[in-house]
């Protein structure tokens, strides 16, 4: 019934718009050719072009003022993060510079040279010097960006074994994450999804006979000691997932049938991040919004939203099915002592099996 009603209303609205358009249409003077622009049209649209240029500038400024100083853009929490952020800022400045100028030229020319009857345009078909200039300038600018970018990329993706990174597996399945620590030997035990044995609680398919697997530790929260390089090995048991850790400027897909990797060094503990002034401001803002939203919920007889406290997050960033939108894991960066205390409390693999 509601469906029928909605469709009827939609049809009526469409008819109303249709009729209004038709009235507008019929109100036009009959004598001028309705298809071709007159001098008056050129003038009006020329001014509108300048108006539109102003609109583009205004929306740019509004966006930057309201949403431009995002902590995610400025506060990286990993060693390589600042390289990415610098390159990002350089690229953005360049983009805004080129954008401002080219949009000005485009819209200003559209206004300045709006047509008039009897005027003749300049026959200007070619100029090799100009073509050369606007080929060579992008070449130079892009060469700079490519060199900087590739340098950063190679640094980020190459794993330096001499750093002796802590090896951690990120294990993805519909729709949750697990972390596997390599234990005292810092070597992950062999694994394959074919070895999964739910009855024995071998949920990640570790090779029970492999000595390296015995001291592995499987957790549902990711704890990382600050300042220590960590090398993630990613695995997925079913479909593609992507381990996205935006605060650390880190992302890598998890692919069934292969192991992918990404390494970084966390530099800011969760506690320190929570105490940063801009983070306090952001969280305060979020909590104000949540209080407002809670009022609505309470009025409907539902529970109020919990107060939010900042935590680093691991999100799934590759479409993976129905609950893709809620596939997350908390990341906690802490001091070495705190980390050691936490990891000691966790069960090692051989003790977690049910025999």
């Amino acid at each position, binding site marked *: 019934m509601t469906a029928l009603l909605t469709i009827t209303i939609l049809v009526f609205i469409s008819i109303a718009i249709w009729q209004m358009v038709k009235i507008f249409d019929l109100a036009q003077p009959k004598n001028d050719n309705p*298809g071709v*622009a007159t001098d008056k049209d050129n003038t009006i649209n020329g001014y509108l072009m300048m108006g539109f240029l102003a609109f583009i500038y205004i929306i740019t400024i509004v966006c930057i003022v309201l949403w431009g100083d995002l902590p995610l853009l400025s506060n990286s929490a990993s060693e390589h993060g600042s390289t990415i952020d610098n390159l990002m800022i350089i690229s953005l400045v360049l983009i805004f510079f080129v954008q401002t100028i080219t949009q000005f030229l485009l819209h200003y020319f559209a206004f300045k*040279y709006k047509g008039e009857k009897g005027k003749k345009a*300049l026959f200007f078909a070619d100029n090799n010097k100009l073509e050369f200039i606007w080929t060579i300038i992008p070449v130079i600018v*892009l060469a700079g960006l490519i060199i900087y*970018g590739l340098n950063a*990329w190679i640094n980020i993706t190459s794993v330096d074994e001499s750093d002796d990174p802590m090896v951690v597996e990120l294990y993805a399945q519909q729709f949750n994450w697990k972390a596997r620590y390599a234990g005292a030997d810092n070597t992950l035990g062999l694994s394959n999804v074919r070895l999964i044995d739910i009855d024995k609680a071998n949920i990640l398919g570790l090779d029970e006979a492999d000595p390296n697997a015995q001291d592995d530790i499987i957790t549902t929260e990711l704890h990382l000691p600050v300042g220590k390089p960590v090398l993630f090995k990613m695995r997925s048991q079913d479909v593609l997932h992507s381990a996205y850790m935006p605060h650390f400027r880190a992302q890598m*897909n998890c692919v069934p049938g292969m192991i992918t990797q990404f390494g970084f060094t966390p530099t800011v503990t969760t506690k320190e991040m929570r105490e940063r002034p801009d983070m306090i401001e952001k969280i305060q803002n979020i909590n104000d*919004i949540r209080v407002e939203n809670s009022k609505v919920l309470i009025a409907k007889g539902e529970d109020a939203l919990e107060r939010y406290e900042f935590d680093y997050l691991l999100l799934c960033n590759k479409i993976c099915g*129905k609950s893709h939108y809620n596939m997350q894991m908390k990341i906690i960066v802490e001091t070495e002592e705190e980390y050691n205390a936490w990891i000691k409390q966790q069960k090692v693999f051989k003790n977690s099996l049910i025999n």
Partner: protein
Amino acid sequence: MSAHADIHAHDDHGHHHKETFVTKYIFSQDHKMIAKQYLITGTIMGVIGIIMSLMFRMQIAWPEEPNVLFEALLGKWAPDGVMDADIYLALVTIHGTIMVFFVLTAGLSGTFSNLLIPLQIGARDMASGFLNMVSYWLFFLSSVIMVISLFVEAGPAAAGWTIYPPLSALPMAQGGSGMGMTLWLVSMAIFIASSLLGSLNYIVTVLNLRTKGMSMTRLPLTIWAFFITAVIGVISFPVLLSAALLLIMDRSFGTSFFLSDIFIQGEVLHYQGGSPVLFEHLFWFLGHPEVYIIILPAMGLVSEIMASNSRKPIFGYRAMIASILAIAFLSTIVWGHHMFVSGMNPFLGSVFTFTTLLIAIPSAVKAFNWITTLWKGNLQLNPAMLFSIGFVSTFITGGLTGIILGDSALDINVHDTYFVVAHFHLVMGISALYGMFAGIYHWYPKMFGRMLNKNLGYIHFWVTAVCAYGVFFPMHFIGMAGLPRRYYTNSNFPLFDDLANVNVIITIFALVGGAFQLVYLYNFFASIFFGKKAPQNPWKSTTLEWTTPVEHMHGNWPGEIPHVYRWAYDYSNPQHEEDFVPQNVPLKDGEEELHH
């Protein structure tokens, strides 16, 4: 010219053809009718695609709130009017598929290649009218199958328009990967066959059927764009076909091309040895050239419309051709920039960063050439011209962020966020749509013999232009804040609560912009019957299509095909009094052919 053309000339001169309703309007082999069929089918698919986008935008802005529209249109997928998470992904998937392939590939390139190639090069029809007809009907069939797939029990395909396996391969991973995905694959396989038949036809026609004097360097840029687009299509579409066929084998015949080591719903599957990354390579080997298959025809249309409405030659005709060729070449060696974080070797990532950023160079040349074309022109700001200027504006805005996404180091953090959505919608979605609208406003008189109402065109343009920026500009910022795309709701992440209002603003712009497309639809359909009769050459253009009679006839020209004596851009030629000289006007005594 050729014997083929002469035979036609004899046939058509006396109007001996007997046309029934079926041969004229349905199984037509006339390129002009086929163009209109493509356009109207594309328009219908476009309406479906846009309504879908408005629905999922409403879900993002007002998550999990009952909406009567959902209840009416989604039925069992919106119990009590609350959108289901599965159908959200399906809407996103089908919206992408429809807009990329059915509207902006078939609707844009199919319409204008068919309409303009024979008319602008001076040919009686396509090289093979029959293949052309088959091409359209395969496209129609694939559209029908895609629409039918919306009604299957377990839901339409929902693995994203990129249909990465294993998600798309395993029905137990997602309801939409059952019959819905089968129909999606069948529809796309047929679509590819249609596209290949069309492309081959365009290539052969452009190479063989040009009228006397129409050398390659006298061709309008539209034809160059359609020609190169067809070449890219012939190179890359078969690879997608192979990917689709291999995926069908994995799904239905137990092979393991893309699958290996899978444990799902409590059981181990038999697949062994395949790789999903292989599928990504095959998919993007088409997927990236595909965005140029979409944008190049729009660039061609815009170049032509800008020159005509500026009353000036297009600036740097040869540089424009060179940049089309450069873009076409580079487009086939950049696909890996979609896969920086896919797990492929980081060294490959470096190579693809390099080739990708190179594309900025021919793109910049094109943008500067368009801007210079306006300089000291006598701009006739017709709706088609406004859409062309709008095209350059969104192409620049969207294109510039490409230097962030093409840079592998930066892509790590914005990959698959709303930043990407903003980027590609501006640079190829909105831009190509503007190119298509520009083409429709400009060549409507040629297609239907009547004029579109320009004032409605102005309203359509300005509202659309404001809304397009209103939707996609703020989207960059929520993307840079780390908000992933394809999330049914963000309410499980309090971290993003401060971005909720941005999503509401975006959705309001989208709804207003969507509603104003009705103005265009009214203008389009009403003008077919009630529009003012068009003069033969309403825009005073130089190209050959405006030398044909307003009333369509089979064979295009009543007499001999006109010969061509000059390039396509003799606007405001100082050697002539008129501000345009059609291509079929011979050089005057002592006249020098400029810039050819």
